[in-house]
């Protein structure tokens, strides 16, 4: 891998060079009751609006590559017949400026299921192929547990990854196009001291995590505790609202509906992101529901993230960003649920 170092002041130059494209990055959206800023990803037009030292955004950036609502196709009716037109919903490249390693890892995980060998999804692929990603190192928040999920660092899936070191940035360069952009800025080659500084910085970051999840043997333990009473306890708390899936960077499931326009000349097939916590998620024709209780749906969610995906891809689907716990109206958090499932081990 190629490394570069540049002065903190050059960050604005980098933003300027990339700003001929549409840039999506963390911005301040408002304040919470304690006056603390609330961040989310949005289109950024002015470098001053880019809040790179955000702790965590409320939502992930997934609306830009897995839109909450998306047209799968349009039908035109004509004389008892119809024509179908498909548009993958991408018309330009986007720059994602300031994604943390958890969110880049989330994309890498989504790639496995959405761009793997089995029916790769062009709606996702069209957007994914047009992303320029500038990763940005973070400072763990109290709800971050990416360290436990092995996603606190990221090995691939970005163009550029920047780590703040004093007055400078250490840049990991992973694409030729990122290299060419850096050529237009003032950068220097890193020295041995820079390398040491970088390693000290990342090891300091690792020491700052306060939230942990024990994932050892978790797939087996989830199977053993399938009938455990803890699921009912969490199910009683869960409001089945789907907020967790809404903010999750790796929740990708959806439902499809068709709509006819008012003059019956056209129809659309619309995909809407869904949540396995919603009551009708596993309902089949005739009304039989395979997961009618809130506890079975909540359990399924954990089962998919922490067991099923591991079985299929040898890694968890959860990246430990902590967004679901922060957003949950019933204060259900992943570390607490998993700790309760593992209760009595020690």
């Amino acid at each position, binding site marked *: 891998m190629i490394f570069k170092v540049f002065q903190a002041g050059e960050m604005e130059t980098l933003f300027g060079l990339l700003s001929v494209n549409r840039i999506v990055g963390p911005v301040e959206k408002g304040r919470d009751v304690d006056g603390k800023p609330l961040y989310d990803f949005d289109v950024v037009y002015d470098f001053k609006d880019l809040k790179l030292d955000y702790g965590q955004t409320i939502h992930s950036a997934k609306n830009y590559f897995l839109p909450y609502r998306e047209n799968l196709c349009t039908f035109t009716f004509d004389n008892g017949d119809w024509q179908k037109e498909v548009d993958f919903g991408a018309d330009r490249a986007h720059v994602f400026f300031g994604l943390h390693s958890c969110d880049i890892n989330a994309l890498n995980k989504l790639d496995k299921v959405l761009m793997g060998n089995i029916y790769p999804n062009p709606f996702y692929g069209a957007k994914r192929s047009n992303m320029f990603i500038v990763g940005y190192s973070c400072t763990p928040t109290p709800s971050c547990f990416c360290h436990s999920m092995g996603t606190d660092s990221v090995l691939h899936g970005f163009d550029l990854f920047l780590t703040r070191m004093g007055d400078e940035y250490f840049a990991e360069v992973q694409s030729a196009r990122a290299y060419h952009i850096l050529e*237009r800025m003032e950068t220097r080659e890193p020295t041995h001291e820079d390398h040491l500084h970088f390693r000290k910085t990342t090891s300091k970051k690792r020491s700052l995590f306060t939230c942990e999840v024990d994932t050892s043997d978790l797939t087996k333990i989830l199977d053993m505790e399938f009938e455990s009473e803890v699921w009912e306890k969490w199910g009683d708390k869960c409001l089945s609202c789907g907020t967790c899936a809404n903010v999750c960077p790796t929740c990708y499931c959806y*439902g*499809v509906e068709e709509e006819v326009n008012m003059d019956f000349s056209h129809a659309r097939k619309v995909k809407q992101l869904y949540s396995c916590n919603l009551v009708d998620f596993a309902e089949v024709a005739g009304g039989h529901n395979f997961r009618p209780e809130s506890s*079975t749906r909540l359990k399924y969610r954990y089962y998919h993230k922490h067991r099923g995906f591991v079985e299929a891809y040898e890694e968890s689907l959860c990246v430990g960003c902590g967004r679901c716990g922060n957003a949950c109206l019933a204060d259900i958090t992943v570390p607490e649920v998993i700790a309760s499932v593992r209760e009595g081990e020690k």
Partner: protein
Amino acid sequence: MENKLQFVDLATSHGKKNSHPGIEHFEYSYKAEITNLYPLTKTEKLYQIQIVDPRERKDFTFQPGQFVMLELPGIGEAPFSISSSPIRHGDLELCIRRVGKMTNFLDRVKRGTKVGISGPFGTHFPVEEMVDNDILLIAGGLGIVPLRSPIMSVLENRSRYGRVDIIYGAREPLELLFTYQYGMWKQFDINLDIIVDKADDKWTGPVGLITEILQKRIDNGTPNDFRKKTNAIVCGPPVMFKFVCEMLIKAGLPMEKMFVSLERRMHCGRGKCCRCNIGSTYTCIEGPVFDYWSVLNLKEAI
């Protein structure tokens, strides 16, 4: 504008490096026509659906047990098992109960309606591997629908199979499907046993649970045959699977020779929407046909 990122158009980039062959066909559906439809019972109709383009129709191949996504533009799209023989290619028969918004609309359409078909999707009953063996087909209620394709397949290759039994249970005689074909099935030396929960005035057959007929069949066979040369294909309501499969295991049938077809409501059929997931097993990709060993390892499967 030298910093402008080049747009990669997935719709036209096929053949180039890093592209996924065929990705642009993800949402493709065959234009098909409902050439005929007729009621089988008060709630089910058989739809004969033909892919319009002759070339596409011929190239459409499937295996018994697979399903298609049937699309009614503007109304909806849903998965249905194919009930016709694989040798008929894209000249399909789907047996559909009117139960929801889309199927009630289907109930009202006329011959000649243009629909969309995509697929075929999912795993199939491995009838090829059952050659020289006995086959036990067990269906409860609508479960006969996905079984009709392997039944047809066996009929068309009758000399290649040993003893073939169909055990079929329904709630009442009026709910029995494909009644007009029972005579033909029997002519192919197939033992057909039908049982209903509740008889009507005309019913002369047995009344009771499907497990009663199965028990008789097991008592008539030899344990050695069940262990060595019998395959079972089972489809029915979730509650039936457990009882029937437990009986078959007790009779000595190996779990990897028992096949079930599971029902879930797919929204994509392509392993993307997660609606049919059991754990994180996609029923649309790894199913709908599973051997019973796989089912035992799936939580909440039946």
